[in-house]
């Protein structure tokens, strides 16, 4: 019941906003849009680009997660995993500079090649640059999810594998792959949607308008041509295509369950395999460098004289505070929306209600494919009669950030809750433990880790996002990403670089803090 309420308020808000916009600017015959060929070309290019981005992100995440699971002890492992969690949240403009600083014409890679006597040959601008950026954003997320799936395998599995003498290949084929295959569609769907709706990246690194997405076309229609009807039509097409592809992805999903147990990866029989060791070291070094180097570039850029001035400046402190408030409020809201939905989802899956669970799946991810401009415009139309709309900016930013975080939170919580439910539901039902008691006593100890991760991710995601409301005007709203954009806009690149670095640091600290606060088990025993 709670689940349906949470779900309908989530999906309802989006549908109301879209519906309001569509009634204001009714779309015409959608099939007509493809006649001029331009839109078909954009769709073809976008599908290709997003498909490749997804494919590469996922195919690199699998060996990366595996290597990290096998190498439990090396210097900087925890740091690498945590650092990679913040690549997803960096404002796109900062990420563009970070990536250019590494892979660009004047970037580290080319300077190194130059020093080795090569001509400068490597140019990222074009499809390459888009893929590099999209993989930079999405590889870490996929890796973290895959790693937690692999690490959830119980010790008995590894003991059995050891006893049967399974090598690295058999372990992958018979133990890890079946498990990963069950979560890949979910994550791939998410990555695909994120890449499909990319805007600033496809332009800045795409080398020109060739790789423009539908998102750009929607912006053009709504802002450049002020043709709302066409904007709505394109928005519907974008939503339709994404949902269709996500349905296709989901239909390949297999039922799965993994127990929330202690990490027993040290029992793996393949950690001492010599080829595996070399391969792992290679993978971790290369992909680790790939993820960390743009971040490092952002940090190095910030080592300038502006650093000390900024951290004590009132505008910076004020923006930091609003960012913290927004991110924590949005994260808590996102979690409160997602938990009931995840329980409902588990319930539906166990009852075999495939259609309803797919509805839930799609409905909760809808927000990712609704163009921000049309969502913002729709919400604006819904709320415009309210007095003082501009003062509501903060609340709207919180609401929208929470909604945007829900698909991520759900994808982390669902598998954990599903797995726990198999362990505890029958027993709880037979003992009459229900409601809050069941959550607190039976579930919580099993899901606190993923909840901590989900909350931390939601908080950092909301920290990095400006919110669609910035498109429509606010008064006195200042967040760190907005501050960065404003500093860039005022030529103050050095100061912007400092704030960008501080934003990353803050996200990193926040991530670490929340994950420990919620996810650490010691404190739970202290209660008894």
């Amino acid at each position: 019941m709670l689940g349906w309420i949470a779900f309908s308020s989530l999906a309802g808000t989006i549908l109301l906003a879209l519906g309001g916009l569509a009634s204001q600017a009714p779309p015409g015959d959608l099939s007509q849009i493809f006649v001029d060929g331009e839109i078909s070309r954009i769709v073809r290019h976008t599908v290709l680009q997003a498909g490749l981005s997804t494919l590469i992100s996922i195919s690199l995440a699998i060996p990366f997660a595996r290597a990290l699971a096998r190498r439990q002890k090396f210097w900087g492992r925890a740091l690498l995993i945590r650092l990679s969690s913040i690549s997803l949240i960096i404002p796109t403009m900062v990420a563009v500079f970070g990536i250019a600083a590494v892979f660009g014409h004047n970037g580290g890679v080319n300077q190194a090649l130059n020093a080795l006597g090569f001509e400068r040959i490597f140019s990222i601008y074009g499809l390459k640059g888009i893929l590099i950026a999209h993989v930079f954003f999405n590889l870490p997320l996929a890796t973290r999810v895959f790693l937690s799936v692999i690490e959830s395998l119980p010790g008995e599995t590894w003991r059995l594998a050891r006893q049967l003498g399974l090598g690295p290949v058999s372990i992958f084929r018979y133990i890890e792959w079946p498990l990963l295959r069950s979560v890949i569609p979910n994550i791939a769907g998410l990555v695909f949607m994120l890449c499909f709706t990319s805007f600033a990246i496809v332009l800045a690194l795409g080398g020109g308008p060739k790789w423009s997405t539908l998102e750009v076309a929607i912006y053009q229609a709504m802002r450049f041509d002020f043709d709302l009807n066409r904007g709505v039509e394109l928005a519907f097409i974008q939503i339709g295509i994404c949902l269709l592809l996500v349905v296709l992805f989901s239909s390949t999903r297999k039922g799965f369950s993994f127990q929330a147990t202690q990490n027993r990866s040290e029992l793996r029989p393949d950690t001492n395999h010599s080829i595996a060791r070399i391969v792992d070291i290679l993978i971790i070094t290369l992909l680790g460098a790939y993820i960390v180097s743009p971040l490092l570039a952002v940090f190095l850029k910030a080592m300038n004289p502006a650093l000390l001035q900024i951290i004590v400046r009132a505008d910076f402190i004020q923006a930091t505070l609003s960012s913290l408030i927004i991110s924590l409020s949005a994260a808590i809201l996102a979690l409160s929306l997602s938990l009931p939905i995840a329980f409902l989802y588990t319930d539906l899956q166990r009852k075999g209600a495939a259609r309803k669970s797919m509805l839930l799946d799609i409905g909760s991810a809808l927000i990712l494919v609704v163009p921000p401009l049309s969502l913002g415009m729709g919400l604006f139309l819904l709320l415009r009669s309210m007095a003082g709309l501009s003062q509501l900016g903060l609340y709207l930013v919180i609401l929208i950030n929470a909604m945007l975080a829900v698909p991520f939170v759900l994808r982390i919580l669902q598998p954990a809750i599903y797995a726990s439910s198999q362990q505890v539901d029958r027993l709880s039902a037979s003992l009459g433990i229900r409601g809050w008691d069941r959550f607190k006593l039976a579930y919580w100890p099993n899901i606190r880790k993923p909840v901590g991760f989900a909350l931390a991710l939601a908080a950092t995601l909301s920290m990095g996002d400006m919110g669609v409301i910035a498109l429509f005007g606010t008064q006195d709203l200042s967040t760190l990403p907005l501050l960065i954009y404003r500093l860039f806009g005022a030529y103050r690149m050095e100061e912007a670089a400092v704030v960008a670095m501080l934003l990353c640091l803050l996200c990193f600290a926040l991530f670490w803090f929340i994950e420990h606060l919620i996810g650490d088990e010691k404190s739970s025993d202290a209660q008894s």
Partner: protein
Amino acid sequence: MLKAEIKIRYDTLKIDCSFSVPAGTGAALMGSSGSGKSSILSVVSGFYQAHHSEIYFQGQRLDALEPAERPLTILFQDHNLFSHLNVWKNIAIGLSPNLKLSAKQHRLVEESLDWVGLSGMQGRKPGTLSGGQQQRVALARCLARDKPLLLLDEPFAGLDEKRQQEMRDLINRLMQEKNLTLLLATHQAEDARQLCDQVIEVEASI
């Protein structure tokens, strides 16, 4: 008296059965694995909705009741304990779903632990116990809950002969002290011989 009439249609599984177990006696559901013994127990305990079922205990119709509302306790092959809760909590949670116990209930937990011979193990987590000890903790909870009908789903699977006998003895004593009615799913004739007054052969028709 437990009276049951059950029809199950699930994929290839097809069961039509009716049986009755007089109060204070035991009945064994016997049959090869996959024959549907567990399904019958699931229907009686309320975890599985059969195509058709009419289940009465002491004249009360059970079918519309939630598992926890039924006058019964069930012990599964596994997952009888919450692995993250210690022994004491695992028993206590059967008496009060929020772990808030009265003084009397506190004593009840102590007594039942003592009864299964595990006094002093209150603080241990299930993972640190042997399989036999784990099942005895679960049995202690059955005792503490004090429901008149006991359902057992292959509860001795995975235990060695000696532990199996210990469990059978415990259950025998439990039945006599509490005048329990027992429905047991097993594939071992020995279980039926020692604990039950009648055997119900289960054979799924295909």
